[in-house]
């Protein structure tokens, strides 16, 4: 195992931001770490890159326990490099930025030059070698940061939202770079993202995090609302406007996740006890390995996931009006502010 962890916790001022009972990450694979903002992805990535110490728990790297002592961590950092979400380049030339890690590893000047050039070639930034790092665009900065990490010849590269602040052109380029460094250099890669599409495109394995804890799948369509009773059934009232059926005996405010696969298109709305229907408009479509992800605006954005065949039956497209059906079996309570009443 590349990494394994037991009861890994990180707390800040008494608030637990990461709580992982168990974690296993294999060598030479691309992993996607998926989760919404604030789910603890970055905290986990910082622990895995040995720049943050967990509050409690054990972390193993290459099956050896990690000693969270500065000397030991420094040695481990020579093998593991983190590329930040918004990487920062030192206020000098691109060349000196890429060369930095090599200097830290006491590589001879001649070799430093060669490795720096190779790394910049790999990310398509060789022409910018002697440019001032401060003058680069967001996408160029991200690519130089990747070259800087690559130059260190790491065994593991951790990317924190690598395409969060770049345009589509650079996004594609960066995804290709990640795939090629993994393929050609056998570098283990962990990519932290909240983009499902990117995760499915890049990763061989996916880890889901929600509110600091691992989950079996990513929570989507997360809403908060008050539990109300109507006709003997319970609903979560979102913005006092949208009633989502929910099986609960809780009262007060709850946080729910509506599973995208449980939401269906309906040709003839027929209310039943466990479902509600909403009219909406399709605002976005994308394909993910034979499935179609549809963003339907019903007043709130609802992500719907259905088989391509099923979607084709409705013969609909972007801008079209549809009726969607939400059923209580697809609604999971993922948090609450009051105890069951």
């Amino acid at each position: 195992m590349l990494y394994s962890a037991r009861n890994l916790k990180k707390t800040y001022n008494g608030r637990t931001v990461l709580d992982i009972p168990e974690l296993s990450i294999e060598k030479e694979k691309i992993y996607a770490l998926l989760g919404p903002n604030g789910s603890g992805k970055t905290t986990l990535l910082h622990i895995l890159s040995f720049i943050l110490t967990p509050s409690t728990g054990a972390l193993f790297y290459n099956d050896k326990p990690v000693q969270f002592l500065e000397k030991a961590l420094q040695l481990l950092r020579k093998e593991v490099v983190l590329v930040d979400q918004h990487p920062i380049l030192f206020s000098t030339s691109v060349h000196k930025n890429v060369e930095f890690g090599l200097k830290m590893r006491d590589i001879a000047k001649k070799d430093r030059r060669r490795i720096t050039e190779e790394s910049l070639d790999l990310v398509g930034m060789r022409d910018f070698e002697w440019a001032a790092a401060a003058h680069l665009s967001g996408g160029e900065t991200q690519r130089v940061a990747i070259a800087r990490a690559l130059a260190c010849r790491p065994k593991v590269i951790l990317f924190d939202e690598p395409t969060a602040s770049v345009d589509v052109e650079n996004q594609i380029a960066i995804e290709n770079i990640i795939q090629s460094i993994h393929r050609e250099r056998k570098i283990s890669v962990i990519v932290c993202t909240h983009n499902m599409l990117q995760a499915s495109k890049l990763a061989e394995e996916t880890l889901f995090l929600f509110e600091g804890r691992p989950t079996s799948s990513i929570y989507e369509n997360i809403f908060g609302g008050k539990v109300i009773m109507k006709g003997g059934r319970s609903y979560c009232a979102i913005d006092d406007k949208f009633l989502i059926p929910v099986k609960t005996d809780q009262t007060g405010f709850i946080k729910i996740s509506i599973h995208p696969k449980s939401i269906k298109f309906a040709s003839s709305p027929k209310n039943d006890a466990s479902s509600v229907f909403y009219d909406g408009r399709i605002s976005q479509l994308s394909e993910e390995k034979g499935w179609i992800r549809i963003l339907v605006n019903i007043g709130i954005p609802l992500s719907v996931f259905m088989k391509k065949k099923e979607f084709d039956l409705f013969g609909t497209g972007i801008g079209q009006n549809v009726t969607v059906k939400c059923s209580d079996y697809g609604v999971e309570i993922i948090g609450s502010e009051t105890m069951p009443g």
Partner: protein
Amino acid sequence: MDFFVDSFLSSLILIRTVDPALLNIVYVSLKVSLLSTLIAGAVGIPFGFVVAVTEFAGKRAVITLLNTLLALPTVVIGLFVYMFISRRGIFGVFDLLYTQKAMIIGQVILIVPVVTTFTITAISRIDTRYRRTAMTLGADRIQTAMVILREARFGIVASVVAAFGRVISEVGISMMLGGNAKGFTRTMTTAMALEYDKGEFVLAVALGIILMSISLVMNILLNYFQGRTAV
């Protein structure tokens, strides 16, 4: 008006003729001020760095104290140091009073808070990602500290320039601890004060022009340095 023009023109002639007495005063001023700034930089920059990057109990109190010391009048420092180094003081045996060393001690006390607080501000403004980036790329603690110092260099250099400006223009410490001895501890500011007392304005104005010129040169050098290292 004639009085002003005459004094100004005579002082320019004095500067142009490179008067040895004037040159000696400038030399003493620069020597004492540069040494004070050098020592204050060697103390204040590391101290400011440590205060900025470490969390410890009483950190706010230390910063408040340093900020208070920024407003310390030079005569108070002069008096304070005098009490220690005069013959009756505990360091009296070292015979420091009315020497350049005494002036340097006083001036260092004056500007260490300047360098320290400016360094704290410069380091605190540096993005935390620099530290994280240096660490993940394999830098040890000292190498990481050097990265942060490098990124904060404009602020730190500005603090040193400000400190130099403070000591070269102060008069209280130089007068009280140096004694304004001709050829030994007479600086530009103490000489100007003396000449003013005597009603002789030519040398005073000449020294004033040189003082302003030094300040201008320092700022030009600072700007040049910032422009050169912006890449």
